[in-house]
């Protein structure tokens, strides 16, 4: 597998990746976990290359994670302060992309609030593009880091019963995770109130539940999703306390999952809304901080893999048929 040539120029989503693609990244990620746990965390595989972080949406952990991943691989990392940039001055997204492209970056990490925006940008630039979250569409590195976290705990994800709970409707994490876990052979369940269940979710390759106790039955892993404050004001949900009562992960509901089931959360958490503090901090079952650690490793794996695939440098191309 080490010789497997990853066939994609960008990482825009889990959709379109096959099992070998994903496992290649996970294996490389595994190796970077070891590197990250050693004292000298440097690998110079990206020496001389430029990584640009382009976050149109505020982010602390994902942006930081990509920065650290890039630096550990020896790349020059630049994070563009988009919130105060020319985008605010009315420049179109495409113009921003063209401008950046002219600076000749090698890797472009993009987060954007609109689904599909990252894909649009990827068509206009010459470098490799990594989707760090687009709207409510995909967040592929989150799904990969989650898979890496689970895999290191249970060995083989195949046959595992994994529940994803909470605001599925607005979650790019859920969409990427369903795709990723399905490819890896897990049995995926989605648990949410009907207002937060996307139409047609039953066709995603996951079984849909509204009753959390029923949905958690026999689960090996419980992934909680973040509930945005603005969903709790009476439009999608009546209140935070009602959500916690019926869909917040507490000891009692968790007791319906398999004994020892692992608990995950992509962060940042709303303690007392989607998850009880005692569970979030559970010494042996909560994998939440481990997920953050795996995030750096898997992003190093992604950056290295895509950098390897970069075409020879030439004149900036006219744009149009990447991917």
């Amino acid at each position: 597998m080490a010789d497997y040539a990853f066939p994609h120029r960008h990482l825009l989503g889990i959709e379109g990746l096959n099992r070998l693609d994903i496992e290649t990244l996970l294996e490389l990620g595994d190796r970077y976990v070891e590197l990250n746990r050693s004292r000298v965390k440097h690998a110079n595989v990206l020496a001389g290359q430029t990584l640009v972080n382009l976050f149109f949406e505020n982010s602390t952990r994902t942006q930081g994670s990509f920065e650290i991943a890039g630096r550990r691989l020896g790349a020059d990392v630049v994070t563009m302060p988009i919130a105060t940039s020319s985008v605010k001055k009315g420049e179109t997204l495409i113009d921003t992309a063209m401008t950046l492209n002219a600076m000749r970056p090698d890797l472009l990490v993009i987060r954007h609030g609109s689904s599909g925006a990252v894909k649009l940008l990827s068509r206009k630039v010459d470098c490799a593009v990594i989707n760090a979250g687009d709207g409510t569409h995909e967040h592929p590195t989150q799904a990969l880091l989650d898979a890496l976290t689970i895999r290191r705990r249970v060995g083989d994800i195949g046959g595992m019963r994994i529940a994803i709970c909470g605001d599925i409707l607005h979650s790019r994490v859920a969409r990427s995770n369903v795709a990723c876990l399905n490819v890896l052979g897990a049995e995926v369940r989605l648990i949410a109130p009907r207002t937060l269940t996307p139409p047609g979710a039953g066709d995603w390759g996951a079984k849909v539940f509204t009753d959390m106790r029923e949905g958690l039955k026999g689960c090996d892993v419980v992934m909680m999703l973040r509930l945005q404050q603005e969903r709790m004001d009476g439009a999608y949900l009546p209140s935070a306390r009602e959500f916690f009562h019926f869909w917040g992960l507490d000891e009692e509901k968790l007791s319906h999952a398999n004994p020892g089931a692992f608990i995950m959360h992509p962060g940042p958490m709303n303690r007392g809304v989607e998850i009880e503090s005692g569970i979030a901090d559970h010494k042996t079952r909560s994998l939440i901080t481990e997920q953050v650690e795996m995030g750096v490793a898997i992003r190093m794996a992604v950056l290295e893999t895509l950098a390897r695939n970069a075409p020879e440098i030439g004149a900036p191309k006219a744009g149009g048929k990447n991917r």
Partner: protein
Amino acid sequence: MTGRTAIYNARLLDPASGLDANGGILIENGLIADIGVMITKATVADVKIDAKGKALAPGLIDLRVKTGEPGAENKETLETAGDAAAAGGVTTFIVMPDTDPVLDSVALVDFIKRRADSVAKVKVLPTGGLTIDLDGAKMSEIGLIKQAGAAFFTNGDKPVEDAGVLRRAMSYAASFDVLVASRPDTPSLSKNTVMNAGAFAARLGLRGAPPEAEWIALARDLMLAETTGVRLLADCISTARSLEAVESARASGVKVSCSVAAYSLFFNELDVGDYLTYCKVQPPFRVEADRMALIDGLKRGAIDAVVSAHDPQPTEDKRLPIADAAYGAVGLETLLPALLSLVVREDVPLLAALKTITSGPADLLGLPQGRLAKGAPADLVLFDLTAPWACDRDDLSSRSKNSPFDGRKLEGKVLRTWVDGATVFERG
């Protein structure tokens, strides 16, 4: 209620099982212990009641009652509504959320239950407001309020105008399999109207509510019920076309039931006649063809529940020019007589009529009462099927007397009412 009570020599009427036969009922510990011809004068019991051949049926269940408690106790309290219910043979009624404050929280639903338990002679179940303050903007804590004991959810007489809000509220409610009731109305068409729109209203010089105010809202509600999968009660439909829409949606698999106000089966728009403010109600009395279509629906079993739509309004709110008068009519005490009159006058099958006020509503809410069955609560009503009488508003037990039946002749009279085996009303 300890000991055994035997009611014998009765005509037993049970719509749930189709029973219409002579016999008796044995009551023990507030429950129906036995039913049938073997219950006679000779049955061993502490109390024996000779029904003298009168009709004995399950106590009525009324899905739509307003009281003024909390907030407008001058109109009606849970206690006076309980008295009126008992006098009307109604042993369970459901209160609407449009009180002051609105029943949109666990605390208020709990308050109604506790308050009614201590002051009302009959069983009272609260509804939960579908949206906070019935503002049609933010959904209430449907899950927690259901757990607190709300019978179903409704926005009362304030329709949720925003289809997006209604869709999400229905969708969320479907997570808990609760019943959502919606009285179909389009305020932009019905606002400030007095009666049904048409030639008669025009001749009286009154603003009328066109039936399309009901049709448009109902069509929307049915579509949203279909896509969200919620159980919908089309509350107080009043036209032929509305009934058709409900039946056709039901035939295509939508989980919809419907209720009709007793007055919609009894009156038509002409009854507003001489600007009678007691006949100013929502939905308004419609045309005779609508009334006949609803009666036909009743005969066919297409109507799940007939309701009193009890809405007490004091004299000061009714003795006004009709345009300024409040909407609403009391109805708890005329619900059974109105239906029995239809049995006599319009050939509605007796059990079909009774079903809409007993097992029909009970089944919508999953209640054990509303049927003559062993083990069911002994909520019963004894009545004379055909006794003629004239309704006089001053004889009503309700605190408010705004009855459109005032002065009307009716057939059928409640004689005695039991709740959990205890007598709560007996005609002197």
